């Protein structure tokens, strides 16, 4: 493992991954891979999650194609130096922030969207000019295998590599030194990743989870709300980090909500849900059993059927759920929707705030003020109002958690930034030393005044005009006469002295 990381580091050090053209070639190769090998990719995802290939395409592949196109279109702008505002002392200098690659990054994926959660970060890492190791989840075996097979066929094998394996391989990998680690998964392992990263002072992005609350106000379009919630909750059989985990609403709404979701489920998946090609299965037996245990002792208003052989769990709704019961203690990550009654929005807000900050938060209401209030008085990674999931799809919005739901963010420009070091650069010349003399010892009170003026003066329009006039005068003098250090310095100082007197009168 160490040798593999070393190899990538050597390749990175050669500088090959830095030119924009190279990065774009790699991204185009990825795009070709996704398009040419679509069938293989889709059947791998479909096999892992019992998902139809159509769904695999719309859930995962589309996102990646979109992300690659975004990077290809925006890379020159993203990678360019951004000029920074200057103060007087640096007026004639170049000041900018230059994005640079970090080096060798590690991307650890999760099993629920096994393709997207490796590829989307990878696109960002490549765009930012890094070398990368990806470690797909071993639980989504087929996708892990296909990534290991395809990525080396399309990407530069010295800079990008796939490592597969279980806990022991991942542990070994985490002992190595990386320049950034992006991990998608659960809280417990998130802590382990950060602890391992601490040994090397490696910055991390942790995309974790939590229980994403969904508050349904009595003043909302209940039909639409239930339709949207049904879609977001049961997609991928509930195995989505930003699925609405549980519903909070007034008791009087419960029955109607159950009814409407029941109807929607029928619309979406038909009478015999098991036969619907659009309804997935639980990833493995362990999670199946875990979810089954969450149903114990609960009031099942709808659904609840399970079949161990196919790891099928029906779309299920629980009502009158006790906040202290097991189903309300952990992220569900399955097709079970508890409804917890609250008296009003105040209670809902308190309920949410008594718990860990979630990855996503949802509010359904016609009342925009109420939505704003819930946002103002709670915290979460992201929010969608009057819908679910959708904030994920806007790639001008950063996607990430806060508190126990994670740290850092990515998607689009944020991926690029996550995998870059934004390096501030100030380029001065070797001339102009007379001005510098103000800062050198031996010091005096007047020097202090000057130093403060130069360092701290904020630029106002009037000041800019004055300085430009002074500079023009100096430039004119320079053109007419040969360069002479002394007069030039004095002229500049004189104009600045006047300017400073005006500034000093405001700041003592």
């Amino acid at each position, binding site marked *: 493992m160490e040798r593999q990381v070393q190899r990538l580091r050597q390749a990175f050090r050669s500088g090959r991954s830095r030119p924009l053209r190279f990065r774009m070639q790699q991204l185009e190769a990825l795009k070709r891979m996704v398009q040419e090998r679509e069938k293989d990719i889709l059947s791998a995802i479909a096999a892992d999650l019992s998902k*139809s290939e159509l*769904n695999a*395409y*719309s859930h995962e592949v*589309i*996102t990646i194609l979109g992300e690659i*196109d975004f990077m290809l279109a925006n890379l020159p702008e993203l990678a360019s130096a951004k000029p920074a*505002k*200057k103060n007087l*002392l640096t007026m004639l200098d170049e000041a900018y922030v*230059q994005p640079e690659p970090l080096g060798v990054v590690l991307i650890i994926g999760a099993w629920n969207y096994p393709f997207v959660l490796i590829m989307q970060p990878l696109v960002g890492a490549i765009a930012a000019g890094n070398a990368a190791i990806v470690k797909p989840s071993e639980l989504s075996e087929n996708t892990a295998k296909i990534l290991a097979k395809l990525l080396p066929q399309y990407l530069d094998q010295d800079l990008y590599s796939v490592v597969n394996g279980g806990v022991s391989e991942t542990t070994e990998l985490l002992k190595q030194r990386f320049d950034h680690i992006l991990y998608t998964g659960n*809280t417990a392992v*998130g802590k382990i990743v*950060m*602890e391992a*990263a601490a*040994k090397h*002072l490696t*910055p991390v992005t942790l995309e974790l989870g939590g229980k994403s609350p969904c508050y349904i106000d009595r003043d*909302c*379009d209940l039909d*639409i709300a239930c*339709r949207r919630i049904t*879609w977001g909750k049961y997609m991928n059989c509930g195995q989505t980090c930003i699925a609405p985990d549980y519903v909070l609403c007034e008791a009087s709404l419960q029955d109607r909500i159950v009814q409407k979701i029941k109807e929607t489920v029928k619309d*979406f998946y038909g009478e015999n849900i098991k036969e619907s*090609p659009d309804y997935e299965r639980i990833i493995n037996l362990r999670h199946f059993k875990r979810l089954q245990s969450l149903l114990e002792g609960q009031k099942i208003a709808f659904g609840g059927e399970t079949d161990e052989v196919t790891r099928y769990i029906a779309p299920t709704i629980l009502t009158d759920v006790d906040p202290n019961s097991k189903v309300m203690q952990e992220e569900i990550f399955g097709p079970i929707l508890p409804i917890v009654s609250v008296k009003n929005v105040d209670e809902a807000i308190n309920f949410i*705030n008594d718990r860990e900050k979630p990855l996503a938060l949802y509010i359904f209401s016609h009342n925009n003020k109420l939505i704003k209030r819930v*946002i103002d008085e709670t*915290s979460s*990674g992201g929010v*969608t109002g*009057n819908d679910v*999931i*959708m*904030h994920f*799809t*806007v*790639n*001008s*919005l*950063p996607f990430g958690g*806060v*508190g126990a739901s*994670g740290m850092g*963010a990515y998607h*689009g420009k944020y991926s690029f930034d996550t995998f870059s*070091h*934004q*390096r*501030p*650069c*100030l380029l*001065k010349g*070797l001339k102009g030393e007379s001005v510098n003399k103000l800062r050198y*010892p*031996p*010091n*005096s009170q007047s020097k*202090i005044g000057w130093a403060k003026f130069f*360092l701290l003066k904020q630029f106002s329009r009037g000041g800019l005009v004055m300085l430009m006039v002074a500079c023009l005068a100096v430039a004119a003098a320079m053109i007419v006469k040969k360069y002479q250090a002394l007069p030039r310095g004095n002229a500049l100082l004189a104009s600045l002295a006047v300017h400073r007197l005006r500034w000093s009168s405001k700041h003592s």
Partner: protein
Amino acid sequence: MDSFEDTLRQLREAFNTGRTRPAEFRAAQLQGLGRFLRDNKQQLQEALAQDLHKSTFESEVSEIAISQAEVDLALRNLRSWMKDEKVSKNLATQLDSAFIRKEPFGLVLIIVPWNYPLNLTLVPLVGAIAAGNCVVLKPSETSKAIEKILAEVLPRYLDQSCFAVVLGGPQETGQLLEHRFDYIFYTGNAYVGKIVMAAAAKHLTPITLELGGKNPCYVDDNCNAQIVANRVAWFRYFNAGQTCVAPDYILCSQEMQEQLVPALQNAITRFYGDNPQTSPNLGRIINQKHFKRLQGLLGCGRVAIGGQSDESDLYIAPTVLVDVQETEPVMQEEIFGPILPVVTVKNLDEAIDFINRREKPLSLYAFSKRSQVIKQVLARTSSGGFCGNDGFMHMTLSSLPFGGVGSSGMGRYHGKFSFDTFSNQRACLLRSPGMEKINDLRYPPYSRRNLRLLLVAMEERSCSCTLL
């Protein structure tokens, strides 16, 4: 449990009441910080002189004025920084409201070192308060005079239900770190940085680590040696070298060294006189431990300038060492003192290799008449920040982010970057209940036809990505 538990609980409760959120509250706190600096300027200067023998010039310029400037900048920009940041939308969300909400994290811990004890307290504090957090401040126990003022005087200027100062040494800090914070901002060394990050990992607390390293200073041939010497000397011996962004060592050719050394002597004499120990403009080493450490480094290479030391005064003369080997102790650790080793290299390539063999530094300096040389150094190395043809001037521009990379740190701050560092960037999408017909395309039963329609619609507007 321990003495911190109550304090932290109270601060958290205060945060949960929403007290720190309104702009008026934050502005009032920031104004309090401004008054603290103005009312206590004299005492602060005296304390800095006591702790580090800082001259009035250095105190004013590198501690008080910089802190004041950050307070003023935050006050001027607070409301605009706090505003929701609107973002561009894709086709599916055209009629919706999409923005990034900046929110406080909650309870923030700021751990401060001893070398710029006022600056490195106030600048992060301004950011944390402006962003609406409650703050626990842990000043350095090593800069005792400032620690006292921060503990006894500063709280009077702030709302004490939302701000607390916690005192102690490594043991107390370790205990403090066992508690849960919502953000930790640490300035110091890499060794403790790792401990802070490991502690933060237990609670999944995001962090900023402002660490250090050996900041290389490459000097090209054909430079005006005196100008280079002036600049390098000033930044090296400022605060007796106890600056995380000071040029740590010089890389240059043998010929350049021969010009630089006399020029450095010239600069040192001009700045500090013939007997620098009597100059009011030169600082002292913070304590015995560091003094002894630095004294040990004086034996490396050959002393070309300075080399004197006086334990009773914690004084070390502005020193230049030559004939230094890469393996010697002075090239193994961050010097953090008024000692400047010169390492000779044959050419630019050798210098760049030398730099890249080592950990990424916090700052990197290159002096050259030729801009291609500067650009080459920039392109072929990495560092937290970079300044061409000067010392740490890039730090004085609050429009530039300040932070490290690799073992010199993670995260950044100053100006607006401070505000962003202490804020959670919360992605918000507010949709209308309408437009359900379009949403219908995303619902099961999935069909190729619906998918095709969606894709066609997206292609026309070159929509970036979707999960429909």
